[in-house]
């Protein structure tokens, strides 16, 4: 594993941001996660700090006390140099069911026309690839997924919808993802995932973490209806496995 040149900047009185080279690159994301794991295990009292990883950055927020930037950034540099390179960060591949029925995939026909591919080709392509979670934000449980094949790149809709339903699976240029709640949105909707991405009744309300991987699999309308109920009462068994580093 390589070590990158990082830059450390203050972000107001209570936060500091560390930045890696500006590239969407899995090796960079993994380096950030190794650093984060090292810090949580050895350097920072976890309850005092919130650490927010995304793409090429890691942001540190201290809720109570202003940060002494000179001092803290010196520590951050030393901790980065000493973090070691061999430690594994556990990451999971989650398999998520998606119903690509036209009742949910309201833009499937249009996407099919625009890409010049049949609907079944689109579904095959979308389910064949695995996607990396580069960030979680925008809405509780919304994943920024990287790794969409070029053949599925389709521009977002010219006019956003005022309401996109919870669970909707969309395509928009280089991104694919799931709307975790009802929200306005301009992505092309190709299906719906019946499993809630954010559940306030769970200790860990969002099962996915930055660095995890997602693969979709197609389900029928009947399976969707069943999984929807299982998902809502929290008895749906998600398929996951550890990803090798």
């Amino acid at each position, binding site marked *: 594993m390589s070590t990158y040149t990082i830059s450390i*900047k*203050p*972000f*107001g*009185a*209570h*936060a500091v*941001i560390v*930045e890696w080279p*500006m590239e*969407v690159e899995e090796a960079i994301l993994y380096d950030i996660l190794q650093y984060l794991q090292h810090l949580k295990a050895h350097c920072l009292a976890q309850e005092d700090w*919130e*650490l*927010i*990883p*995304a*793409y*090429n*950055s890691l*942001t540190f*927020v201290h*809720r109570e006390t202003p940060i002494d*930037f*000179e001092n803290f950034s010196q520590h951050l540099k030393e901790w980065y140099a000493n973090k070691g390179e061999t430690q594994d960060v556990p990451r999971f591949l989650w398999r998520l069911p998606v119903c690509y029925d036209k009742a949910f995939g309201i833009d499937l026909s249009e996407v099919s026309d625009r890409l010049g591919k049949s609907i079944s080709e689109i579904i095959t392509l979308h389910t064949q690839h695995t996607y990396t979670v*580069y*960030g*979680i*934000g*925008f*809405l*509780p*449980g*919304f994943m*920024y997924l990287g790794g969409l094949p070029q053949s599925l790149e389709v521009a977002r809709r010219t006019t956003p919808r005022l309401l996109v339903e919870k669970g909707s699976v969309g395509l928009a240029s280089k991104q694919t993802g799931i709307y*975790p*709640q*009802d929200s306005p949105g301009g992505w092309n909707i190709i299906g719906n995932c019946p499993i809630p991405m*954010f559940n*306030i009744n769970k200790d860990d*309300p*969002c099962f996915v*973490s*930055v660095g995890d991987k997602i693969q979709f699999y197609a389900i029928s309308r009947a399976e969707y209806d069943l999984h929807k109920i299982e998902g809502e009462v929290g008895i749906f068994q998600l398929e996951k496995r550890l990803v090798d580093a």
Partner: protein
Amino acid sequence: MLKVLKSGFFTTVQDAGRYGLRDKGVPISGAMDMISAAMANRLLENTPDAALLEITMTGPTLEFEEDTYISLGGAEMSATLNNAPVQNYKVYKVRAGDLLSYGKLERGLRAYLAIKEGFRTPMVLGSRSLFKPLTPHACLSDKSEVPFNASKGFEPKIEELKVPPISEGGALEIFKGPEYEMLTDAHLAALFSKDFTVAKENNRMAYQLEETLVGHHMAMLTSATLPGTMQLTPAGKLIILMKDGQTTGGYPRIAQLSERSISVLAQKKFGDSLSFKLVLTL
């Protein structure tokens, strides 16, 4: 219970906020003007995380069903308790059946109603702050009922505080944001010499400003944002994220408001003017 007879424009329950889930996309929420909210709580000798009502623009009409003590803070909204005027930052004893009403907005935008021991609405992921979709509603409506514990025999150490209204805070203090260095001389000159106006698009998520800066083509990868983060859109629009603001964003974060400036901004409404000054601490 506190009975909401009329809810007003936007009356919500907030506390010190919901922490520890920013990496899962959950905004911290909490009182927009934390300084005023905390002072109202402190007079009642409440813990800093006690939940209170945040009342925006036009106030509610409220009926108390138990005896308790209250203290108001933040915006001045001509509040009356059984028709007698109530002042900010003073402890009042309230009896079952008493009516608290609000009138004309005199100063600021957001008023706080703190109650002895705090309101006891359900805790969701470590906070009572209302935030849709984590909570079913973002604000109270007519006929809502807000639970609290009755309280008797409280003898406050301090009964009254004289504090200048936070809405007269002067220029907002900002720190350099992570993308501050991308700003051109033209951007900087405009940012620190112009007066800006609060746009109609202002709420608990974000405040937009009417005046724009020169547009830009700077690209960045999505990264963390905080309450008080000032973003500059490619079209030159300035957006300041607030307590319910998204936890990540893709627009350059040119500045970061100080905690005090977030409180000052939270008391500004559509059409109010403001200016910025840079804090150089580093």
